[in-house]
Structure formats: C-alpha cells, structure tokens
C-alpha cells in the first residue's frame, strides 16, 4: 500500500508532532507514504471557494495532478482538506465547462488533471485498508483499562454522498472501532456527532458563540463519561477542543477537569512505543500525566 500524504497547511505548521506521528505509524502498518512535492492549500473553504470557483478548482486540480503523477491515492488527516478536495474532484468530473477552464489554467503551469485521483481520509485508510486487527498487533503499550471518547470530523460525514465512507452516515463507528483496537473503552456522550465548531468562519465571526458551542460538547464529555482522553482525527478538532478546554478552565468551577486531546495517529504512535517528544509534544492542555500512564512510566 502506497499513499500520497497531503499535509495541508495546519498540520506541518501548527502541529508538526502530528505529521511526525503519521510518518512513523503508517509505515509500521505497511502503508508507505510518498510526499506530494509542491502541494498547496487544498484550498480552504473560506479562501478560493468563497471567492472564485474556477480559481478554486484550479488550485485543487494542481494538488490532484501531483498525486496522479505519482500514481498514488491521496490521504489527508485534515477534515477540511478532505472535504474541500472531495467536493472539488466531484465538481471537476461533473461539469465539462468548468473542467475545460481549469485544464487551460493548469496547462499554463505545465500540469495536467486526468481525473483519476482518489481522495481518502486517514480514518478510511486506517479502518478499511489496514483494519483494527492489524493495528492491535502492533502495540507495545495498549490502552487497556483506559476510557476514551471520540470526536468525529464533520467533514468526513456530510454530505455523505460526496465525502462519506462510514456506514450508516449518521451513525459512524470507524473511529470508535479504531480507538477500541488500541484497547480503550470508548464511551458515548450526547453531542458526539456535532462538529467541534472550530472550522470555517464561526470562531472569527462569533467567538463567544463558537466557544459556547464547544463548551457544551466538552461539558457533555465531562459529565456523561469517565473519559481520560479525547481522540480526534482532524487538525481543526485537535486544535479547537484543546484551546477551548483552556478557555473553559479560565471560567473556573464549571469547567471541570480538562481531558487531554490527541490525534488518532498520535495515540497510535504512543501505543507503538514512539518517543512522546516527537509524536505528542505540542498542546495547550497538559498531556504528560496521561502519556506517562500509557507508557507505564
């Protein structure tokens, strides 16, 4: 199995420890990662898709051409990148007129979009290509006895016709199964299928509203479960839930006990025995205590 790793903008710049975790864990599971040299912003929905559709699709097609040239499926952890790229691919394949305009733009840059690109999300690859059983067999430090909750990346759920891989779309289970494969008990909470609220323009345009939206989710996790960690698989979920716990803590009392947040590949890397300083070193809420427990240190 060989994949083109689409990094996006945030993972390599804001959470490079996640990039490191992906680069270490996937090969150990038999998934070789090729770099997509020269990749650009997906583009984010708030950028070109909000300003000029043809330009936006040309930017996506630029990225597609890199994966097509290498003959690899494109895989990304970022939910926004995943959804933006899936949406663009569909649009390019369905609208001949806009495809022609995009082809002309790409030709100017010496690139070609053939239409063969396959865009995958990390959860999809981990679950469907590798599988929970194989993952279970690679762990030095399983999470046995620990309790977790999961946050599904909204961009991998809806619209299911364009982005969906989990079934049924409204009742996803793959991330849960993957975390259970690490040995943890995954508990359910209300608002589990609500998005984190951190993407798009919500935080910027209505900070109080976006914070309160995340607080409701975090309070539900805190009061309805005994979770010791939150597992996500999207850079925005990771950053937003981490930051919002810091904000909730400042409100005092009602914040409860903050729960450390990890990207799935980070927890996987810790379970595989990789160095926490490389794979889980950047966060707002402290994670050292939990990491020590995982490593039985």
């Amino acid at each position, binding site marked *: 199995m060989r994949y083109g790793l689409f*990094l996006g903008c*945030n993972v*390599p*710049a804001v959470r*490079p420890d996640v*990039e490191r975790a992906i*680069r270490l864990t996937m090969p150990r599971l038999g998934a070789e990662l090729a770099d997509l*040299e020269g*990749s*650009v*912003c997906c*583009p984010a*929905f*708030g*950028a070109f*898709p*909000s*300003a*000029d*559709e*043809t*330009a936006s699709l*040309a*930017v996506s097609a*630029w990225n597609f051409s890199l994966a097509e040239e290498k003959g690899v499926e494109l895989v990304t952890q970022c939910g*926004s990148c995943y*959804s933006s790229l899936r949406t663009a691919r569909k*649009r390019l394949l369905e*609208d001949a007129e806009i495809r022609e305009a995009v082809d002309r*733009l790409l030709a*100017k*840059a*010496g*690139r070609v979009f053939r239409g063969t690109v396959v865009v995958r999300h990390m959860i999809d690859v981990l679950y469907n290509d590798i599988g929970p059983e194989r993952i279970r067999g690679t762990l030095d430090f399983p999470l046995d006895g620990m309790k977790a909750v999961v946050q599904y990346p*909204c*961009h991998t759920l*809806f*619209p*299911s016709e364009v982005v969906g891989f989990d079934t049924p*779309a*409204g009742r996803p289970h793959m991330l849960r199964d993957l975390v259970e494969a690490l040995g943890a008990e995954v508990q359910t909470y209300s608002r589990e299928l*609500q*998005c984190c*609220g*951190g*993407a*798009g*323009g*919500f935080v910027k*345009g*209505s900070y*109080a*509203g*976006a914070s*309160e*939206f995340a607080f409701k989710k975090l309070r539900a996790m805190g009061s309805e479960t005994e979770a010791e960690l939150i597992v996500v698989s999207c850079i925005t979920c990771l950053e937003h839930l981490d930051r919002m716990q810091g904000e909730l803590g400042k409100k005092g009392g009602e914040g409860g006990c903050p729960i450390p947040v990890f990207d799935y590949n980070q927890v996987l890397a810790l379970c595989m025995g990789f160095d926490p*300083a*490389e*794979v889980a070193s*950047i966060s707002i809420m402290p994670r050292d205590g939990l990491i020590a427990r995982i490593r039985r240190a």
Partner: protein
Amino acid sequence: MLDLTNANADLWREITGSCGDIRHCFNCSTCVAGCPAAEGNPPLFIRDLVRKVLLGLEESLLEDETPWLCVTCSACEEMCPMGVHPFEVCLAIRRWQTRNDDTYIPAAVAEIFETGHTQPLDNVREKRRAVGLEEVPPTIARYPELLEKFRDMLRDTDLVKNNEYMFKG
C-alpha cells in the same frame, strides 16, 4: 410589508447557477436546526439567506455578513429535504458578494497566492526539527520554482485579474 420595488427577480439565477434548485426551499428550517453557527451572535440562518436570494433583495444580501460565519460542516447539505444544497448556496453567496464588493475578498486568497499556504512556516522550523522532521515540509514551501508556476496559473483567473492590487509577489 416588504418593499420589492427594487428587487432583482433574477438574483437567484445569478447566484446559484451551480447549486441545487433553491426554488424548492419552503423555509422548513432544517438547515438552521442542525447548524452550529445558528448559535452564533449574530446567528447564521441559511433559510433567511435563501429567502433573500429568492426575493431578489440585493442590497440587504450584499451587506449581510452571516454567510461568512458558516463552519463548513455541511450538516445542512445532508439534512435538507428539498435538495437545495444550503452549504453550496452559502459559498455561492460569498462569491457573489466578493464579485460585487472587493472588501469581502478573504485575505487567505492573497496569502495562498503569495506562499501557497494559509499558515506561515518561517517560525516553525525549530519546532519541526525538534520533533524529528525536516525544517521545511515538502510542500510548495520547499519549491520556489513551483510557486512561481502556481502564481502564473492564478494570474490568469478572474479573481486575480480583477483585483491585481491584492496579489503581489
């Protein structure tokens, strides 16, 4: 009573050419019920935006900043019983606004034109090295010659041609 004297009856054609047929919208509010940004202040009510488009209320729509609150989760896209594609409508309204008022053009497009990315990579080199990665990721950040080609491509788009002042480099 709504004053429709200056309404543009063709506004919906102008804005939603590539979306679902928004004329099927009957304001059921499913798009609002499942929308995180409907809990914002001001709230995003997509059903109201669709109504403005259908009634042709250009002036009101042009000054309405709520489409930019969307979190892009696309729950509305999944749930809309009439196939209106509310999220696509939201993006289409943003594009119409940017075409008619350049102050709406997101700063992120100029950043992407300049560097290929929305996040600066200059101050992260040390952090990347500390976690065992190469200082500059193998994206366009490492390939200035590709960035030049990328910009050339974008220079041919309407957005860049019509707003040259925003796109330097």
